[in-house]
């Protein structure tokens, strides 16, 4: 097989054109000496500077937090690095901010750790750092500590990013899926499957046009509105990332030992996602989201929750999709064409396009 012999050969799908004599990342950039400091100063700090990060200490020194803490981490390995609607940088920020937000915390600080493949163009790195900076500004979060490693060519796929986030838990903290009760109502904040389809269609070069847009974005405002509006009514929230909505419902069913039951006709799916899913034999409920969440509220609170969500553009198409029932034979059911409730499958592995 032929391998990538030039720095522009990653599956970048990046709008930046890379000049032939572009500067790129070398192993020396990761070795802790002069070049490492240059990379940090001229690229990372240039985009992300703030009063904590500038100290470049072994650990950031941060002020005291009043409430209890929330702590989360995620690594981002998306391929391609740029996809319609986002890139690995914005994803790395929104992903961690969203995890804090749905946990009931006010996101405060992030760490940012880059694993770069030797030969990665610095122009692309700068572009991703700008995207990180933009997402951090949008969500009012500060990147206070970081790390950069460079691995030899062929040992990583261009760039992996890890973010870890610290937030302050704000009362009332959603008590979590173990507290779900019969008749609780299930809500989805927007059309599903957009991120998974956008990335799949871009990566596998399926020749689809226009490429569907990822929903990659912040859930901060919608969570805050929900909490300030009906905070005491919220049981749990979850951004429906890998495994999609189906995986969230299965996890919640497992945690609560109840059955979660949804109506297919109420689940919002955008026409493009619908079209691609039919064409490739995929179920939108299994496809990843990166700015769309599932919410469970107490009985009767669903309408209020949907109202609140519909008040901002990001979640204007929020819908109640189902309710919690006493435990049946299967953990998650879906009503499709006919009246009978069918089991909704828990996704197994990455959804593969199929012709059968």
């Amino acid at each position: 097989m032929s391998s990538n012999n030039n720095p522009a050969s990653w599956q970048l799908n990046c709008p930046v054109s890379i000049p032939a004599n572009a500067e790129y990342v070398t192993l020396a950039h990761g070795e802790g000496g002069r070049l490492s400091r240059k990379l940090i100063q001229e690229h990372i700090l240039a985009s992300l500077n703030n009063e904590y990060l500038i100290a470049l200490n072994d650990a950031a020194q941060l002020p005291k937090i009043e409430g209890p803490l929330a702590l989360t981490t995620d690594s981002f390995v998306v391929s391609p690095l740029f996809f319609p609607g986002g890139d690995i940088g914005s994803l790395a920020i929104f992903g961690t901010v969203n995890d804090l937000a749905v946990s009931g915390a006010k996101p405060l600080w992030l760490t940012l750790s880059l694993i770069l493949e030797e030969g990665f163009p610095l122009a692309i790195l700068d572009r991703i750092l700008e995207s990180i900076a933009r997402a951090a500004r949008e969500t009012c979060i500060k990147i206070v500590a970081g790390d950069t490693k460079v691995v030899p060519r062929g040992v990583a796929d261009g760039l992996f990013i890890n973010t870890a986030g610290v937030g302050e838990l704000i009362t009332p903290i959603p008590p979590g899926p173990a507290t779900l009760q019969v008749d609780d109502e299930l809500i989805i904040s927007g059309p599903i499957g957009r991120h998974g389809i956008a990335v799949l269609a871009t990566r596998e070069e399926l020749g689809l046009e226009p490429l569907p847009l990822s929903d990659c974005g912040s859930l901060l405002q919608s969570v805050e509105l929900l909490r300030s509006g009906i905070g005491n009514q919220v049981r749990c929230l979850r951004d429906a990332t890998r495994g999609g909505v189906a995986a969230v419902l299965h996890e919640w069913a497992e945690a609560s030992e109840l059955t979660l039951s949804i109506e297919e006709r109420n689940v919002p799916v955008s026409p493009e996602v619908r079209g691609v899913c039919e064409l490739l034999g995929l179920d939108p409920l299994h496809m990843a989201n990166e700015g769309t969440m599932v919410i469970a509220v107490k009985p009767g609170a669903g309408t209020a929750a949907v109202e609140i969500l519909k008040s901002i553009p990001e979640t204007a198409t929020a819908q109640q999709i189902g309710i919690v029932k006493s435990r049946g034979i299967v953990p998650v059911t879906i009503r499709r064409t006919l009246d009978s409730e069918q089991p909704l499958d828990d996704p197994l592995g990455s959804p593969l396009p199929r012709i059968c």
Partner: protein
Amino acid sequence: MKYLDEYRDPKTAQLLLDEIRRITTRHWTLMEVCGGQTHSLLRHGIAVELEGTVELIHGPGCPVCVTDQAAIDFACQLAQREEIVLASFGDMLRVPGSHGSLLDAQATGAHIQIVYSPSDAVELARKQPETQFVFFAVGFETTAPATALAIKQAARYRLENFSMIVSHVRVQPAMESLVQAPENRVQAFLAAGHVCTVMGYESYESFVNRYQLPVVVTGFEPLDLLDGILACVKQLEANEAMLENRYARTVQAAGNRSAQDLVQEIYQVCDRAWRGFGTIPKGGLELRPEWQQFDALLRFNKPAIPVFKRDECQSFEVMTGQIKPPECPHFGTRCTPESPLGAPMVSSEGACAAYYRYGVTTTP
């Protein structure tokens, strides 16, 4: 989506369902030939709604399930070779061979590329002339035109780095072998709509006459299926055995002549080993001698690799309607989608996977 959504209309479906229940006077056993129909029947809850009225058993119509284990082993072996990329539909990746699936092979270093269309594999070969691309050509008559076209395109481009493992299977010989079996209890067939789209259904005339069983060409959406079932039940209740086309928006009596010509030009009928069934006479398609330069078997002279067939899998019994998947002793215990013993547990078209996925874990 036009021509999809209207055939999923719940109210209309309910009308058809009521009508089927209304006219049914005794227990009828129908076979939906195609795995896609199995999938749809379970996904939309039709099979459940008809429990006690009409029993639906699944036919051999999942090409993933019936593809011979040796072909999968060969595909894995080629994919492991440094100079080869194996291109495949996503469907085949999880099917177990003797030493694991293509996904397992990939996990240990094999080069596998999912494609949506066989012609996409031709394009890959054109763009990367240094790499040998082998397309794993599985599927029924529906898929054969797409793979035949890929061969023609590769020939037009004079590609020397494109070949195929041809493992196409033919539906009708399998139906024949099925009704001839002493265990057969199928009383009517929902014929596979998309196979008929290509092949037409005239050839079923003699089948219907010979075996005196109703055959109804049926589509895949809930209304299509209910309509096809209703047509079958009506024949059975009237003690008739006719050939009907209930998928006429797509299927014509003679099928698609251009597609048949294409298949005819590239392939010839051959005997073929079906997984779970053994060799079915005339059960497959192979490349005609004039296209053999595209035969991966010849190009990469296949060594005799031992195939360790897993006899535990009851796929033959399942695919011939003798048992339903939950009656297999391994169903849901030793055999799950995470760790399938047999092919029907893998593909989302496979009957066992469909039962597992849709939670039908007990026999009716």
